[in-house]
């Protein structure tokens, strides 16, 4: 292990580590907490829950988000659900099983101790949310309902129709607003962190831009928590919200926080395909659709071509003319293989020329068989033994509508096609980033006093995240981990007194930020920011997407460096510094994506194996399956920003030790 990395994993058996550790963390008395300030950047599930909980404990909290209200953080968009090892369905779930599934799902690239803690606290999350009034789905007996999600064998996912993220976030938001009302949290909405301030080696504040007035503000604290979400928008098109960005995390990285596993990104298999150049974002179609939909492409290249050219329709093809490629390649799991496997298989078919929309990047997700199956079932139940085909289809359509009605409607609104009568077209899209700032067991980064929570850290999902586990992790970090672990750092600060914003470190950070922003405004270029973002996204998607090769990655590095240069030379940002200026904010974000992209390529290049969402063409079996190389690569890559150049980052390795779970090859055949 690198000498600079100390993961601070407590001693003892994995199931006892957290309880023991909690018992030994130094406590800060209530009177002393009042003398300690904490900054929380981000008000998604991780940030809101952390800010509310820390304020309840007595710390003075300042919370920041760039939206107009903390309630609008990107967590609001999560659809499917949140996992917890409650075992309410009595189907054999347990803390150990959730722990095991998460490690395995992550393709053995996460830390056992962290993941076990996550599984342990998962049950408290549900109790907490219910007490706050989160209206989870219930059964007719009035008890909480669960569904199975993401190909696991138990039903441990709690949900609120297709709006689980919204309901959980509104719960955390109301807890936060309650503390705002009490004066325990000062909320800074429409504020963007543009730099981290490090004083004598410790994170002591941030520089934030007031997005309404354009002023740069200095905010000090004894500790800073970054909960700014994931960096999927480096791909330009993703299922993330438009404003999601890496700036807070990246600025921290440049001030000394190591960035872990940047190349581990998740591409979700079922999204609505790209339809044109002006598209601004991609929309997820919930994973649950794969429970009933069958995925296929035409078996012959001629038919695929005819479909693309509009000379043929999906329904014209007979069963023999179709290739249900997931069922063919993975007979045991079929359409329910994990996300990374399903995504790659779709890409393989489309690359080979079998894509079914005008861009050639789409496959079918077909409900016709499910409609007939359900229809027949209904007809039997109703005793309609002579039911005609159309009667059966009508009955089956009703069943499918009751299960997926809102998703089908969303699909129809966007594509103007009726998915009940013609198969949906889907394609993989960027969805989640497992990589993020490196943190130790206490969720502290390599900069003392800088903690990182939620999607912004790298902690729990290894090389591939399981469905419904991001919401769990965000709330675990904020409600149940940070409130304890910040004590490991803050206990030494009870007599520090307020941190002055007049310190030279604040002045330096502020003037550097100002110079940087003014640089964009003064650039005499001619190209809008959006154009650079789009071009970067294309490079990253083509070369650091679902499949990566040495040649492609080297090409990407050169292309990104060239694009970065061009950006600083040729970007055009209108308007002024001291006003609401979203173009300027966007330039600042895209500039950071242009650096992150290069680090992702470096990381992907260094990881000479295929694992989870990271697939290297050079490392696959003869049947095209991923080849993990545990002997050499069972480590976390933690990159240190070096020499002011993302391309010169230094790699540190945190070896992963598996004491409780045996490493095996994932197989879905």
């Amino acid at each position, binding site marked *: 292990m690198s000498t600079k990395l100390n993961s601070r994993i407590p001693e003892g058996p994995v199931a006892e580590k957290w309880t023991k550790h909690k018992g030994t963390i130094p406590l800060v008395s209530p009177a002393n907490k009042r003398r300690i300030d904490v900054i929380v950047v981000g008000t998604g599930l991780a940030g809101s829950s952390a800010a509310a909980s820390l304020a309840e404990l007595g710390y003075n909290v300042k919370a920041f988000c760039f939206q107009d*209200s903390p309630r609008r953080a990107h967590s609001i968009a999560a659809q499917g659900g949140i996992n917890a090892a409650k075992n309410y369905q009595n189907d054999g779930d347990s803390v150990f099983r959730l722990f095991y599934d998460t490690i395995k799902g992550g393709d053995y690239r996460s830390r056992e101790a962290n993941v076990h803690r996550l599984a342990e606290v998962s049950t408290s999350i549900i109790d907490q949310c219910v007490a706050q009034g989160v209206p989870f789905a219930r059964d007719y007996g009035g008890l909480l309902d669960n569904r199975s999600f993401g190909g696991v064998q138990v039903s441990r996912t709690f949900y609120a129709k297709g709006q689980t993220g919204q309901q959980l976030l509104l719960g955390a938001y109301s807890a936060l607003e309650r503390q705002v009302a009490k004066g325990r949290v000062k909320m800074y909405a429409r504020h963007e962190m543009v730099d981290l301030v490090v004083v004598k080696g410790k994170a002591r504040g941030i520089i934030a831009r007031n997005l309404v007035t354009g002023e740069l503000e200095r905010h000090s604290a004894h500790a800073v928590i970054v909960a700014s979400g994931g960096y999927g928008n480096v791909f330009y098109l993703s299922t993330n919200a438009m404003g999601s960005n890496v700036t807070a995390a990246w600025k921290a990285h440049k001030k000394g926080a190591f960035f872990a596993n940047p190349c581990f990104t998740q591409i979700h298999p079922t999204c609505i395909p790209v339809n044109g150049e002006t598209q601004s974002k991609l929309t997820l179609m919930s994973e649950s659709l794969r429970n009933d939909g069958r995925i296929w492409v035409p078996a012959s290249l001629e038919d695929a071509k005819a479909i693309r050219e509009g000379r043929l329709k999906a329904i014209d093809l007979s069963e023999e003319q179709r290739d249900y490629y997931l069922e063919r390649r993975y007979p045991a799991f079929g359409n329910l293989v994990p996300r990374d496997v399903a995504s790659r298989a779709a890409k393989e078919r489309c690359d080979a020329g079998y894509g079914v929309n005008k861009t050639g990047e789409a496959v079918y997700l077909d409900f016709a068989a499910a409609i007939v199956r359900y229809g027949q079932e209904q007809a039997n139940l109703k005793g309609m033994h002579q039911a005609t085909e159309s009667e059966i289809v009508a009955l089956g359509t009703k069943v499918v509508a009751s299960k997926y009605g809102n998703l089908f409607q969303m699909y129809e609104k966007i594509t103007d096609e009726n998915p009940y009568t013609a198969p949906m077209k889907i394609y993989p899209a960027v969805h989640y980033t497992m990589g993020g700032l490196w943190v130790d067991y206490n969720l502290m980064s390599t900069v003392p006093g800088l903690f990182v929570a939620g999607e912004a850290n790298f902690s729990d999902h290894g090389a591939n995240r399981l469905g419904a586990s991001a919401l769990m992790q965000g709330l675990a970090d904020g409600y149940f981990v940070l409130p304890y672990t910040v004590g490991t750092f803050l206990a030494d600060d009870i007599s520090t007194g307020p941190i002055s914003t007049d310190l030279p470190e604040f002045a330096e950070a502020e003037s550097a930020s100002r110079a940087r922003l003014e640089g964009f405004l003064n650039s005499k270029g001619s190209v809008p920011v959006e154009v650079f973002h789009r071009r970067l996204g294309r490079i990253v998607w083509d070369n650091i997407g679902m499949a990566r090769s040495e040649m492609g990655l080297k090409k990407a590095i050169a292309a990104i460096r060239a694009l970065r240069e061009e950006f600083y030379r040729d970007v055009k940002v209108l308007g002024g510094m001291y006003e609401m200026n979203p173009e300027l904010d966007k330039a600042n974000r895209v500039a950071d994506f242009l650096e992150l992209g290069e680090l992702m390529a470096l990381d992907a290049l260094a990881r000479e194996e295929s694992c989870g969402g990271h697939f290297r063409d050079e490392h696959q079996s003869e049947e095209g399956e991923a080849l993990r190389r545990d002997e050499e690569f069972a480590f976390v890559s933690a990159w240190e920003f070096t020499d002011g150049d993302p391309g010169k980052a230094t790699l540190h390795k945190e070896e992963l030790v598996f004491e409780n779970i045996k490493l095996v090859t994932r197989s879905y055949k």
Partner: protein
Amino acid sequence: MNLTLKVWRQKNAKETGSFATYQVRDISPDMSFLEMMDVLNEQLISQGTESVVFDHDCREGICGMCSMFINGEAHGPDRGVTTCQLHMRKFKDGDTITVEPWRAKAFPVVRDLMVDRSSFDRIIQAGGFISVNTMGNLPDANATPIEKHDADAAFDAATCIGCGACVATCKNASAMLFVSAKVSQFALLPQGQVEAADRVRNMVNQMDLEGFGNCTNTGACEVECPKGISIENIARMNREYLKASLIS
């Protein structure tokens, strides 16, 4: 298609604003309304004109950021969608489209089409929560069964995205639909009972302080609500308010 846009431009809260007229060409019917605005903005920047400022984030109808008043309707002509989910196929080649910000005293314009809705946050601060701290030893989530019907109704009320279309649509700029959705969610759940009287009183009080208007039962808010929040919630809130005044 080619369109004429009449867009409200206003530099900041202090200055007065006015409409500017722009042309956009070759708009595909598959674009969302906001993607059409992106095209306009790229075009404006290339011509050296500052882009039109508007709130937007998730672009899938759930964050509640986008807030445009399009041809006199909150979130435009389609029903049950936010502006980001409105597609250009709802318009015809040659159309003139008028785009304005939400108009309400309690929602001052920040810039162009962007308004300040922090009054909604302050209403939540007044009582839109259940007073429970983060604790590891709360009662088990299944300790109190909740009748499915009530749980579903609470959920329906809780799906409000806080966009403010109800206020923008109401001729009195009333926030009753927004406030009543939150009051209803908690009124329907056992967890919300303890603080029910204070909650409704404080939230209604804050709503009045913020300068929202009265409800005169036109029902326009329900029609324009992208999430179909029902005005039954307003009736429920009125009952809760009455109950609370009887107690005090």
